[in-house]
């Protein structure tokens, strides 16, 4: 018993010749169809090389075009040639010139010997799970496709659109259920003969001539009529990306391929010398398949595909420039507003209790403070304030991207950078802890006596803060707002909330509270402003609990 190989060759004839020699020397019968598009000189060189080999035959050449029935005709011709000229074959395997055996051929022959009644063909019922990547499915059968997808793309699309509008629905010939699957099948001689000698073959041909990509449906549908025992699985490993483009194998895949759960792989890049030498080597030995290695291979493909489709959140680079409306940062981060006006040395306290680096002066206007802050940064970001402010959103994105393994947390004053404040308010990854009216503490410490000026400034701050809080409210950021009274009265609870929100949360026991910055006379100050007619939000009016003196 032997196995027939039906080989469709379109280009890279040198590589195809290598494959033919290899198949033939393993005792396989080979029938070859060479696309009519191939140059005559190339064809004759190829012919002279492999035609003299015993058991290698050529079919007449026809012009093949992707997606059309000519490919099925070529498949039928090679299959017919094989079953007619060789009585002793059990299976016919459909291959292309850029396939390679990923397991030694004797192993395949053994495998088929014990399964001489099984058809290996991926054959999936249309309308079920999505088998197709990017394209038509049921409509492949129900519409007419007289135009070339490659040469007349617009006409092709327009014609599909037009038929949909008209509601055209072709009927399948009686007795057929549409199935679809990979064109790289291995059918038993018995099934093939039944398909070839089907009394309705002409009728089916007429139908499939107007189907789209019939090489993925002709045999897949007919095997359901004639097959005895169908294993809906291809012996050839092939993979398509989401554009429907076949994946290619390269030299660096050599250590993976023999572990794939198949006997052939498709397609191999023509320049993969090492892979060709290894897989077509005369004395080829293969280790048993290791599913772990195969899984690693699949994972690397999925990773690459996810790069292309989804990309990495928060990354802005030469190949990825998502619109800022679909904003995404690399990871969750924490924004503290007002904490630097209340607490003294919050950063060392946080470092001690949580191990997290609080970037206090990331947005500082002060040159020295900022330079100090940049020393703690990764990735050489922020060498000057001008560079930081030149593209502040870019700086923030870089900061988060570079520190996404840590816990990005920084002090931020929305008044200093309103555009960035807006950016943060729209980011679902932002967790904002805002102490309301904390700017009052700056004014308090100034001890200014110019009442009119003070009122004007307070009003300005209030309006800005109000606008910011409204933006936060309307945005997507996660926001917690504290009043000054809350912070001064229950600093432990406020800090506890903050720490619980961090990824690196620690136990809350025995944690001392960091010292406050001076805030003497705040009630008095607040009363004066209130009496001057300002409606401040500090919560002090209802809970004036701390030990100040009223005047």
């Amino acid at each position: 018993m032997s196995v027939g190989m039906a080989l469709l060759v379109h280009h890279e004839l040198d590589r195809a010749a290598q494959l033919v020699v290899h198949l033939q020397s393993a005792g396989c019968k080979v029938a070859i169809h060479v696309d009519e598009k191939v140059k005559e000189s190339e064809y004759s060189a190829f012919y002279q090389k492999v035609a003299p080999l015993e058991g290698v035959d050529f079919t007449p050449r026809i012009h093949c075009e992707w997606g059309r029935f000519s490919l099925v005709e070529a498949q039928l011709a090679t299959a017919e040639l094989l079953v007619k000229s060789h009585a002793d074959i059990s299976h016919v395997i459909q291959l292309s010139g850029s396939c390679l055996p990923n397991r030694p051929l004797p192993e395949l022959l053994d495998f088929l010997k014990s399964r001489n009644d099984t058809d290996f063909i991926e054959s999936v019922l249309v309308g079920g799970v999505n088998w197709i990547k990017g394209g038509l499915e049921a409509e492949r059968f129900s519409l007419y496709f007289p135009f070339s997808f490659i040469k007349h793309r617009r006409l092709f699309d327009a014609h599909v659109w037009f038929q949909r509008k008209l509601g055209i629905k072709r009927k399948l010939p009686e007795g057929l259920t549409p199935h679809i699957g990979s064109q790289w099948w291995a059918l038993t001689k018995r099934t093939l003969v039944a398909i070839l000698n089907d009394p309705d073959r002409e009728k089916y041909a007429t139908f499939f001539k107007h189907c789209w990509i019939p090489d993925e449906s002709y045999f897949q549908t007919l095997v359901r009529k004639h097959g005895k025992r169908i294993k809906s699985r291809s012996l050839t490993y092939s993979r398509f990306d989401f554009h429907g483009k076949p994946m290619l194998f390269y030299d660096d895949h050599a250590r993976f391929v023999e572990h794939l759960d198949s006997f052939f792989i498709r397609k191999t890049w023509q320049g993969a010398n090492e892979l060709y030498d290894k897989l077509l080597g005369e004395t080829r030995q293969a280790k048993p398949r290791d599913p772990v290695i195969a899984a690693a291979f699949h994972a690397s493909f999925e990773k690459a595909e996810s790069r292309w489709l989804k990309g990495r959140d928060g990354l802005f680079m030469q190949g990825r420039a998502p619109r800022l409306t679909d904003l995404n940062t690399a990871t969750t981060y924490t924004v503290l507003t007002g904490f630097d006006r209340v607490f003294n040395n919050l950063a060392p306290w946080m470092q001690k209790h949580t191990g997290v680096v609080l970037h206090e002066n990331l947005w500082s206007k002060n040159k020295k403070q900022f330079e100090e802050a940049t020393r703690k940064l990764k990735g050489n970001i922020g060498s000057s304030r001008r560079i930081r402010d030149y593209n502040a959103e870019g700086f923030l994105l870089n900061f988060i991207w570079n520190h996404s393994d840590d816990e990005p947390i920084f002090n931020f004053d929305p008044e200093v950078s309103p555009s960035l404040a807006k950016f943060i308010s729209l980011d679902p990854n932002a967790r904002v802890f805002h102490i309301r009216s904390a700017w009052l503490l700056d004014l308090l410490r100034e001890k200014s006596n110019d009442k009119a000026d003070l009122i004007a400034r307070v009003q300005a701050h209030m309006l800005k803060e109000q606008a910011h809080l409204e933006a936060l409210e309307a945005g997507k950021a996660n926001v917690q707002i504290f009043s000054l009274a809350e912070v001064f009265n229950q600093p432990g609870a406020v800090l506890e909330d903050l720490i619980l929100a961090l990824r690196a949360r620690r136990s809350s026991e025995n944690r001392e509270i960091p010292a406050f910055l001076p805030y003497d006379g705040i009630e008095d100050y607040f009363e004066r402003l209130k009496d001057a007619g300002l409606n401040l939000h500090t919560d002090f009016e209802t809970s004036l609990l701390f030990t100040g003196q009223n005047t």
Partner: protein
Amino acid sequence: MRKLLQHYRLRLLRKRWQVRTIVRKKDLTNLTLGEAARKPGGIFLFSTMRNEIARLPYFLEYYRSLGVDQFFIVDNGSTDGTTELLKAQPDVSLWHTKASYRRSKFGVLWINNLLNAYGHKHWCLVVDVDELFIYPHHKTRPLRALTDWLDLGLISSFSAMLIDMYAKAPTPCAEGQNPLEVLTHFDSGNYTQRRNIRFTELWIQGGPRQRLFFPNAPAKAPALNKTPLVFWRKHYVYISSTHLLLPRSLNQTYEREGGEKICGALLHTKFLPDIADRAREELKRGEHYANSAEYLAYSDNPEALAQMWSAQSTEYVDWQQLERLGLISTGGWA
């Protein structure tokens, strides 16, 4: 209507650049023409250079090993033996000119001329002699594997941003030595981008040059976005070094919907220890972009030039590292 008008304006601009290109054709005198200069389907490299005898041997070796079939080089009046060395290479087609580098738009017009004459329907790589092109899998797959894959996906331009390489401490680089053995470090995370509407390109800035030489004028820092690899057609033009191309669709080497398009990098080996001398010489010639502002910045700040390394710098390992850092992407090419 506005769209149509804009389209037409860009077309006019492209035509203007084509005319400019043709005008500068007279600058070039052909010295040698390699055998493979007309090889169908060949991968071609185009470059302008002047006095690059130290870098040249490694440059040729590097790109030969990637699979470049033919080098098309404009020699802008070298005096250090560059011309002689190039003449002796069988795979180099050489042109000579003593005309002004500045007036040829910093070499762009010369290169456009050669691209139009030889590059039509070829994959063309346009690089400077201090740029080493890398791309995903470059250690195991030759350039042809990349261009075949791009062909399959109907992609006709490939971006590779400049990454400035520098030494931890100044070390001399011997003639013909791989400059990356000396220039071991780079900035990993300080690049920012803006998308320009007119030519739809991403304008990328950052890296050590912005950090050290333009801290107070970041907008003036050099652009790092480049599109050096293009499946060339006669009507294309480069209009600003390899940063910008027309038609503008060639500049769209990025995804807008969140995905990452495949891209590589040009490892920039400009900052060898001879950079200070070079800067002085180039300033004297005054033939560079924006009145040689960049070289002015170097000579104004010799300390920074001598110490580009910082404690946050990253040591270069391989392309996988750049991929992890998010500077390049495999974009679906597994």
